């Protein structure tokens, strides 16, 4: 099992290199502070810190050699996580089309189910009530132009 310090360290190392490389496209502007300076400084620091993190991870890996820990993967959790993410993305995409008042109770109902709420009357009640309260506060009191369907 690779230590997560090594994984994250490598990831951040790559990010820092990417950002540093991108600064070469920036134009040279000489008034005061060139836009290159700040990102370059930050990504260099990130580069060094990521190296340190990887080093830490390698040290840990050597110390714990032999004791192979099995990674506990909670399958149900991963499914829930992905479902919630996917439905959130779907929600955002249908929001403009269906309108806030229709899309939101659907989304709340689905997330209640993902959060393992089993009583159907609670699901119906909470999803409708929450939407109505939020709609009343934001549309009617604060006048936020919420996405709407044809009629409201």
């Amino acid at each position, binding site marked *: 099992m690779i230590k*997560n310090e090594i994984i*994250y360290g490598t990831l*951040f190392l790559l*990010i*820092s290199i990417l*950002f540093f490389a*991108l*600064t070469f496209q*920036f*134009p040279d*502007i000489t*008034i*005061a*502070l*060139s*836009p290159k300076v*700040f*990102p370059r400084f*930050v*990504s260099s*620091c*990130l580069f060094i*810190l*990521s190296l340190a*993190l990887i080093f*830490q991870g390698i040290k840990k890996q050597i110390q714990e050699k032999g004791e192979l820990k099995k990674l506990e993967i*909670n399958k149900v*959790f991963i499914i*829930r*996580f992905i479902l*919630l*993410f996917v439905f*959130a*993305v779907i*929600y*955002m*995409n249908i*929001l*403009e089309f269906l309108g806030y008042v229709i899309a*939101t109770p659907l*989304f*709340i109902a689905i*997330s*209640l189910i*993902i*959060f*393992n*709420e089993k009583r159907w009357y*609670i699901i119906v009640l*909470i*999803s409708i009530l*929450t*939407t109505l309260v*939020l709609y009343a*506060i*934001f549309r009617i*009191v*604060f006048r*936020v*132009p919420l996405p709407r369907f044809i009629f409201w």
Partner: protein
Amino acid sequence: MTGLIEGLAFVYQPLNLFFLLIGVCGGILVGALPGLSGSVGIILLIPFLYYMDPAMALLMMCGMFCGSMYGGSISAILISTPGTPSAAATILDGYPLAQKGQAGKAIGVATIASTAGGIISTLCMIFISPQLARFALKFGPEEYFALMIFGLTVIASVASKSLIKGLISGFLGLLIASVGIDELTGYARFSFNNPNLMTGFPMLSVLIGLFAFSQIFIELGNIGKKADLYKQKIKGVLPTWKEFKQLISVIIPASFLGTIIGIIPGTGGAIASFMAYNEAKRFSKNPETFGKGNLIGIAAPEAANNGTTGGAMIPLLTLGIPGDVITAVMLGPLMLIGVRPGPLLFTQNPLVINSLFVGFMTAQFLILILGFISVKVFPHVLKVPVSILFPIIMALCFLGAFSLNNSIYDMFIALIFGVIGYFMRKHGFEVAPMILGVILGPLAERELGKALIISHGNWFTLINSPIAIFFYVISIASVVYSMIRLKSMRKKNIE
């Protein structure tokens, strides 16, 4: 003095008092519910704040801040789960007392101590911050730049369990902040001609994602775990007069300790409460009773952690550097409502400051009243099921992200940063330094740019000011200190 009267007149308008009350109530609720903390509470307020008067919005946030600090003690006492990290020390004596059937008295003492701590720290805030602000008015861009560096390093090094991870988190925040149009030159960095990226990542969506959405994802993993409940009846709230006299002699020094810890950027309630607990134990005549339900063991940490509230506001208001995680989160919404913390606030917007002072003081009394009224309700509050709470929070967060710019792109950013925040928190990278990077990064760069313009591009101007050098030195000192601290902690763990 006339300023404070002006503040009084503002706070005691019915509507404003009502918003303060909502803030305090909400704060106690989010504090008491495990999984929600003061920072999430502030984020849940964001969508509402946008439509309020700045002074009013600030009142509500302060209520939330103080309330959550107190609310954490309730779940700590009743079910041995700290509602907020600052309440962890309260468990040590609070939970044993609750087991003996004296939960009422434990909560009563926590309420009194919290209020006293809050009052003392508010007084300190009222006296210290105008002086500090007057001093900070002399700061130029060089000093500000040094101050930003100080704020970043301190929070990254103290708030995190691992120095490297904390710093990485902070620098990632700075990198995120550098996306978008550069204020000085107008060049759009890292944006690939994408109009959404040109304006940079919307700061508040990032905030909502990193703190609130990541928490929602974490809660997904807790489904099915049985929640603890407190089943005994609550009675007998007030301590006896003899106990009270004993307690007050601990509460006052603990409150001052909390205030001082609060002023130091990067510390916070958790550190203060444990320090106060240990000191109280050390000075006690019978330290062996600690941990078995000693009332002093509740009073000391509670006075200290509420003492940090006023203390943490001091650097935030006068220097624009947050004192702890919650005030760091407050910085974002403050800018949203047009309040730019810093010494100029005291001269340009005295009403905001004065109503904040009065509001902070009022919040402490509201805590006292609400605490005693609702003692019997608290065990029921903790019964709110996660399965209902978090979907509602998610809907509110989405609406909040949307309403800031009326854009679905902002909602998407919040969701993405929620996932990023989840993975970071899961693997020991705290998100607070990242937020600070996102918020302070552009400010630091602006000050640096200003300093360089004034000095015609001479970088030595940065070390020309003694105050700036002072900040650099203490930044380095804080990093070194936390390196030593972590090393000694590791040694202790091995032994």
